[in-house]
């Protein structure tokens, strides 16, 4: 057999998001900027390991714990703390125990476990509705899990804001008992979030149409700087009697990217349902990777359950959120200084790590080719990659390609 089994295997296209970083790394221009991946950078453009995290790690190192397998559902303490972070520890759901939370491989792992669970047990529909646009990886995750993807209007390119009327209109027409996915806060890629009164109306129509709500919360604390404010939408839906499912990631808000810390929660009718759901989640997880990695979950647990460290963490999260907000303000100020006549208000109206600049693919290409500024084709920039040192350069470049 001189031939390979793989002769017909096509070269896969580079991942659109992570591929940006690869291209950035190859660039030799000293002024290059990586505004691709959503990983936080400090004002020197460096990765930031939170002090609270370092302290938690030191505690772990001192304890000299064993390396025994975690249960399939992960570290129980972590799961409880994670649910409490999302819902608030006085939430009726937490008190009654009518939920299950399993530790997952960060947000992606959580979404995949959730999608697989729906594929197997949500007998009413195969249809999942994503906001348009959504995180690029949502579609392949749900598709690989066996679901079908559709979209509801979300981003209004005319205003670079929320198309509330369009969203309500589309959602009111979604077939009953379909799955609808919401970004809990800091929508990725647009940075456009509904206001509380808009969330209320969205919850009402979801309830009316008996839709199944799937929340993706990857930025709790990171969006506004306030963990309770950022999880308001999730809590409101639950309060309205909507039993949601929820994906959480600690990649950004704890800076634990490569440790892969996440959780998937299912709000249930009662404790018995929660137990049954948990048993099925474990059956799904086991043939994926057996049980999750402990390191990041241990760190997160210590942070969430030690009063001092939790306080310090919350301050650091606010610090990150504040720096992002500051960069947004500086970018707009600099664009004005450059003499741009466009309305850039959306840059400060949007929230979280990402900003939909409104730039077209051709303009993005020019930014990359002429200025070595790397971002995704849809005009999304990671504001975390902006610093007081390069915001002026960025503004100049944007002005050049958009004037």
């Amino acid at each position, binding site marked *: *057999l*001189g*031939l*390979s*089994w*793989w*002769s*017909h*295997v*096509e*070269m*896969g296209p580079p*991942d659109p998001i*992570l591929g940006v970083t690869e291209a950035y790394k190859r660039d030799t221009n000293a002024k290059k900027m990586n505004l691709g*991946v959503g*990983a936080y950078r400090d004002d020197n453009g460096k*990765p930031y*390991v939170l002090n609270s995290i370092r302290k938690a*790690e*030191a505690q772990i*190192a001192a304890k*000299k714990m*064993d*390396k*025994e*397998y*975690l*249960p*399939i559902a992960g570290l129980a303490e972590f799961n409880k703390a994670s649910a409490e972070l999302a819902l608030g520890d006085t939430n009726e759901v937490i008190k009654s125990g009518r939920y299950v939370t399993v530790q997952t*491989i*960060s*947000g*992606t*792992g959580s979404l*995949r476990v959730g999608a697989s669970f729906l594929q197997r047990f949500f007998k009413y529909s195969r249809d999942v509705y994503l906001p348009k646009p959504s995180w690029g*990886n949502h579609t*392949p*995750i749900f*598709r*690989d*899990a066996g679901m079908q993807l559709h979209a509801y209007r979300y981003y209004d390119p005319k205003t670079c804001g929320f198309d509330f009327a369009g969203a309500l209109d589309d959602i009111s027409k979604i077939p009953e008992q379909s799955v609808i996915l919401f970004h809990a806060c800091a929508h990725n890629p647009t940075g456009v979030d509904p206001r509380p009164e808009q969330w209320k109306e969205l919850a009402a129509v979801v309830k009316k149409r008996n839709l199944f709500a799937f929340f993706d919360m990857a930025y709790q604390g990171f969006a506004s700087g306030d963990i309770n404010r950022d999880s308001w939408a999730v809590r409101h839906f639950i309060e309205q009697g909507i039993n949601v499912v929820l994906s959480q990631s600690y*990649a950004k808000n704890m*800076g*634990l*990217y*490569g*440790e*892969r810390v996440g959780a998937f929660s299912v709000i249930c009718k009662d404790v018995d349902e929660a137990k049954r759901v948990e048993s099925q989640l474990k059956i*799904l997880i*086991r*043939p*994926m*990777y*057996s*049980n*999750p*990695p*402990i*390191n*990041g979950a241990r760190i997160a647990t210590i942070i969430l359950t030690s009063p001092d460290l939790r306080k310090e963490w919350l301050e650091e999260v606010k610090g990150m959120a504040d720096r992002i907000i500051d960069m947004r303000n500086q970018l707009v100020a600099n664009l004005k200084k450059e003499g741009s006549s466009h309305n850039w208000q959306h840059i400060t109206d949007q929230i979280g790590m990402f900003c939909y600049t409104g730039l077209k693919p051709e303009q993005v290409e020019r930014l990359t080719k002429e200025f070595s500024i790397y971002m995704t084709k849809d005009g999304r920039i990671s504001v975390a990659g902006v610093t007081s040192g390069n915001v002026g350069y960025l503004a100049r470049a944007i002005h050049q390609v958009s004037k």
Partner: protein
Amino acid sequence: MVTSVSHSLFPENVFTRFHQALSPWLVERKTLLFSLAAYRTDEGQPWVLPVVKKVEQKIANDASLNHEYLPILGLPEFRANASRIVLGEDSRAIKENRVGGVQCLGGTGGLRIGAEFLRRWYNGTNNTATPVYISSPSWENHNSVFVNAGFKDIRAYRYWDAAKRGLDLEGLLEDMESAPEFSIFVLHACAHNPTGTDPTLEQWKQIAAVMKRRFLFPFFDSAYQGFASGCLDRDAWAVRYFVSEGFELFCAQSFSKNFGLYNERVGNLSVVGKDADNVQRVLSQMEKIVRTIWSNPPSQGARIVATTLTCPQLFAEWKDNVKTMADRVLLMRSELRARLQALGTPGTWNHITEQIGMFSFTGLNPKQVEYMIKEKHIYLMASGRINMCGLTTKNLDYVASSIHEAVTKFQ
């Protein structure tokens, strides 16, 4: 590895719950856990390898390290060195640049990524009908992995001969001869789980010859390299032989046992292809698969392994730690066998020392197993599988006498 039994007296995962909830109690009450797939010291304790402690300290003290995302396929130094470990220092395939690695979440993750890839790209595209053959018996999660990857036709190939308590080579080869061409065969690289029974070198050669002639795809599961015989090269012999015979193959490697890194989820899927170009394309498609399951793998465990494998001193220390574990298991095997023979326990017990690795198929039948569990508080699997790591110098006599009682009371 979390275990559950195919035809069990107990529901899934009860053994894990026992262990976690009752550990100190168990030690006191002489309730002996022989069902978990984790190494234990002679004091019945988990063992963090000294080299791992050392490397973890190094990592903890290195302020230059951060928690940034790894690439989708994982830490490059880990992938390359992990593949080198199984394929050998002087691997021609590596020199010819036709080997790739995908860092995965443990051996399970490696199997799943490999299975997902095969379902999409092997024997056509999205050919869910390609038969997948799993040994009878095998690690019970094998079946689940391939089913969940989308394969519709999972079959068993004969492996364990209960009557002679050894390998049913004739049955195995017959099943390979009659398997449809291009079928996938999941092979245990060494220390077969759960039987502890491996083909001899000559038998592996026969297996390879049939597989080559029938165009069968070898998917190796290597969870115990070094842990079985105490020697890394010896435990990788089968995989290396297949590579030298020109096979394209997958090998899902786990570092859970040989590094004792169970909960860090460290694994590597090694891909050996005809040439670099094919391997590149395969890896690019595996990236797409990984991206929708976990995006990119956890860094801690991979860092520990990579650091160890790339430093000669640490590497030597690691091999030593591995040998410590393997030697203890080998000692327990010979001690148990000696006691059973001294007691005159009915039956033959040489299989205890002929089998290799963490597990042994004792040959105890369900009634005898039930006795062991209920009356003697020795929790082995209903299949009669025992984890040799549960044996200690302190409990050898008790276990031997319990087996003796079980075998003499129930036939």
